[in-house]
């Protein structure tokens, strides 16, 4: 069932001739109630797919913005169980927007892969990205997710050669995620011209839609990447809005959704503009 939600969304976007805007939020950031409100508002603000981060104490591939988001969520008692609970609540109001969970191995190992897969499918999640599980360690997790028709999305990176891409994409379904910079999230900026040939490589290796993430912060950059990829992921720039809103005591939800709106608009109009240029 769930794999079709991602496939259906990319089929619809292909028919529209545009790239997907994928919004990353940290579950429970800054707290459960606000996090759920943001989640429910994302599709209306223009998110075509949603990545929901589940917080981990030691996020080794994250830059300061997502490290801080995880800490805010953990300090408010966020857990993997509550993340799934939040997705179930979202599914009561939205049955079509795909949700991909993203995080680190230990909370999943702690729960047990089979139990996690059953619970995630029941909650209405569609896929999973685990930053610290490369293809070499992926088999037990991939088997557990397969049993529940959930997609595993193994990351492709600038250091993955063609031989590795084949291995990565063999165990990936839904869409391919290309990490556009060698580095942590939210620090280096991705360059569309550099990214383009890699997107082609990833597309050729797996035949899946390719979304690009890490290092995309502005509408301009998002639009540029949307011209060469099938989807654009923005995370750190969104969680930074949470921090900013808290700092100046503004509505967190309004601020995050406004940023989503401007990024989504840029992605939606990217290819139209490029035709008229």
């Amino acid at each position, binding site marked *: 069932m769930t794999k079709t939600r991602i496939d259906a969304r990319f089929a619809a976007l292909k028919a529209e001739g545009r790239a997907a805007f994928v919004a990353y939020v940290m579950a429970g950031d800054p707290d459960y109630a606000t996090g759920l409100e943001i989640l429910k508002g994302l599709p209306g603000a223009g998110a075509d797919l949603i990545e929901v981060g589940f*917080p*981990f*104490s*030691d*996020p*080794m*591939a*994250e*830059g300061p913005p997502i*490290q801080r988001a995880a800490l805010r969520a*953990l300090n408010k008692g966020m*857990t*993997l*169980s509550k993340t799934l609970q939040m997705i179930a609540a979202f599914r009561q109001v939205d049955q079509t927007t795909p949700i991909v969970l993203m995080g*680190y*191995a*230990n*909370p*999943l*190992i*702690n*729960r047990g892969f089979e139990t996690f897969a059953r619970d995630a499918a029941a909650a209405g999640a569609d896929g999973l990205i685990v*930053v*610290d*599980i*490369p*293809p*070499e*360690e992926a088999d037990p997790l991939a088997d557990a997710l397969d049993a529940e028709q959930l997609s595993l999305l*193994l*990351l*492709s*990176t*600038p*250091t*993955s*050669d063609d031989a*590795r891409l084949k291995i*990565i994409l063999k165990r990936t379904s839904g869409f391919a995620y290309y*990490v556009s910079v*060698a*580095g*942590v999230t939210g*620090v*280096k900026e991705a360059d569309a011209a550099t990214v383009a040939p890699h997107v082609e490589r990833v597309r050729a290796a797996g035949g899946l839609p390719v979304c690009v993430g890490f290092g995309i912060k502005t509408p301009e950059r998002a639009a540029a990447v949307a011209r060469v990829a099938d989807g654009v992921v923005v995370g750190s720039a969104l969680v930074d809005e949470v921090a900013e809103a808290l700092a100046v005591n503004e509505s967190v939800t309004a601020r995050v959704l406004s940023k989503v709106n401007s990024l989504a608009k840029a992605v939606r109009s990217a290819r139209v503009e490029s035709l008229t240029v």
Partner: protein
Amino acid sequence: MNAPSPAPNDYSAYPDAQGRFGDYGGRYVPETLMPLVHELDAAYRAAKADPAFQAELSSFLTHYVGRPSPLYFAERLTQHYGGAKIYLKREELNHTGSHKINNCMGQILLARRMGKTRIIAETGAGQHGVASATVCARFGLPCVVYMGAVDVERQKPNVFRMNLLGAQVEAVTSGSATLKDAMNEALRDWVTNVHDTYYMIGTAAGMHPYPEMVRDFQSVIGQEVREQMMAAEGRLPDAVVACVGGGSNAIGIFHPFLNDEGVRLYGVEAAGEGMDSGRHAAAINGGRPGVLHGNMTYLLQDPEGQITEAHSISAGLDYPGIGPEHSWLHDVGRATYLTATDQDSLEAFTLLAQLEGILPAIESAHALARLPEVVKDVGKDGIVVLNLSGRGDKDVATVAAHLGRTI
């Protein structure tokens, strides 16, 4: 009486090609690092098999590090406990004052061989940081050492030593601002600087091949003990004792004895303020298996799988995990893992100073603290070897503060 085993047994066959010691170990790293991990593995295997590499390493260990380190019969300590003969393996006499230099010398030669031009390292007590800064100075490579801000504060002399050696010390304020956070930050640096940077991990943990490679470089300790003990007593010891944080000094002295079933192996974890207090750093005695920093191993974690903070008077043992080979040796019952509290270790620190005229590192004092039990286990005619992994000069201020004295 123990005779050396004539043939190797299964213990020496680990890890497997996937870097597994039973269920433990592995390579849980982001994809960006995975090709680098394979490159390192291939380079290490080639170096290990290359007699020229081994000869170069051996020469530096002799002339620069000062090996072999003595195996010293601690006569007054033996009399004090009134039982088995106690020998100390004097790793604190190495250049830079601890066993850490053995591994750094091996890894810097490997990094050079791989053409890497920048070295990064993490450090807790600062012993590995000092050893890393030392070999980087010796070979003219820039060195960045990540160190938790809490540790920077409690190990100021070592921070200054690193600076004198030309290393840049980065104080890490994220998380608990101790060793695990320093390791997170070093990994973030590595994933960002994939082309020129070599990550010099200081303990026998992390992603494969580090646990195996660090163990191999530290095994010189146990190999020397075998030879020295045969020369001194004509037989192998009955027990070997070492403190365990990540566990590099312990695995280094244990490994050459794994096949000798008659040699009991004791690791001593840091019990901090006591196992019941919840404020400790004993991953095996107080944790359960999980994944952190690239390997599956025993970890301190909460019921949701979040890593919890370790607590120990010893910055070098203040880590919520342990090397994967120790997790496996515990599960299969080949080694026994005991604990010692901050208070036990302080008493052992003072005792060794007064009986033998040796200030041990507060890390090594954890092993000393369990000597009464080990001595009793092996009986009056037994022989015990304790790995005195580091010198205690760096800990004088900490010890004074705990004794309520000002210096």
